[in-house]
C-alpha cells in the first residue's frame, strides 16, 4: 500500500534532518574550541542531501544523506601570547564557524523536521481511517 511507502518517505526525511541537526549541534559545540595548530582545529561539517529514487516509475522515493562535507575554510589565527595553548609564536587557532549561520540552518532543519512529522501524522490518520472502512 502506498500509504506505508509515504510513511517511509517521511521517515527518511526525519533521519536526514536529524543528521543535519546533529552536525549543526556539533558545529556549534566546537565553535570556540581553541587549538595550538592549524591541523588540529575542528572543521565544520555539513551533510549533503540527495533524492533517493524509487525503483517504481512514477513513485516518489525519499531523501538520504549522500555524504558529510567538511568545511574548507582556514582556521582563524589570533595573537594571544598569554594563552596556555598558544604556539611558539603566540598564536592560537579556532574554527571559522559563523554561529548565526548555524542557528539559521538549525531553524530551517527543525522546520523541515516538523513538516515531515506533519506529513506522517496526516498519512497515519488516512491509513487508520482506511482500516475502519465498511465498519
Amino acid at each position, binding site marked *: 500500500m502506498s*500509504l506505508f511507502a*509515504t510513511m517511509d518517505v517521511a521517515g527518511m*526525511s526525519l533521519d536526514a534532518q536529524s543528521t543535519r541537526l546533529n552536525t549543526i549541534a556539533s558545529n556549534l559545540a566546537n565553535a570556540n574550541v581553541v587549538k595550538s595548530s592549524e591541523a588540529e582545529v575542528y572543521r565544520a561539517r555539513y551533510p549533503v542531501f540527495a533524492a533517493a529514487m524509487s525503483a517504481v*516509475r*512514477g513513485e516518489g522515493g525519499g*531523501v538520504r544523506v549522500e555524504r558529510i562535507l567538511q568545511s574548507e575554510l582556514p582556521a582563524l589565527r589570533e595573537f594571544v601570547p598569554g594563552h596556555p595553548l598558544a604556539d611558539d609564536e603566540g598564536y592560537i587557532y579556532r574554527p571559522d564557524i559563523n554561529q548565526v549561520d548555524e542557528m539559521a540552518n538549525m531553524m530551517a532543519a527543525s522546520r523541515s523536521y516538523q*513538516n515531515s512529522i506533519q506529513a506522517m501524522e*496526516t498519512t497515519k490518520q488516512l491509513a487508520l481511517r482506511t482500516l475502519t472502512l465498511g465498519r
Partner: protein
Amino acid sequence: MSFTDRIFDGSSQALNLRAQRTQLLATNIANADTPGFKARDMDFGAAMRREMGALASDVRRTDGRHLALSSLRHGAAAAQYRQPLQPRADGNTVDLQREQVAFMDNAIRYQASLSFLDSRIKSVRNALRGE
C-alpha cells in the same frame, strides 16, 4: 466491468491514485532541502480518466479463470515535473507552501473518497440484509 467495479464506481481507483499522490507530495516535502531536486506531481484528472477508461474498455472474458485486463494495467500514474514558482539557486524547485497545500488538499480528497466508498459499502450491506 465487474460487479464490484460497478458498485464502487471508481472509488477504489481514486483511493489508489490519491495514495500514490500522497507519496509523491511527501517526497517533495522530504526533499525540500535537497540540491537539484525537481518537485513532481501527477495530473489527477488525467490519471483518473485513464483508470476509468481502462475499466470501461476491459476485454471480454470467455472463461471465469481469465484475468481482467484492468487488474493488469494497474501501474503507477505518470508523474510530471512541477512548474516552479521560485526556483532556488541550487536547482531545487520545491515550493514548500504549495506542497503543503497540495498535501492537505490531497488528504481531504482521500477522506472524501473514503466516505463515498464507505457509504457504498453500507448501502450494499443494507440491500443484502433486506431490512
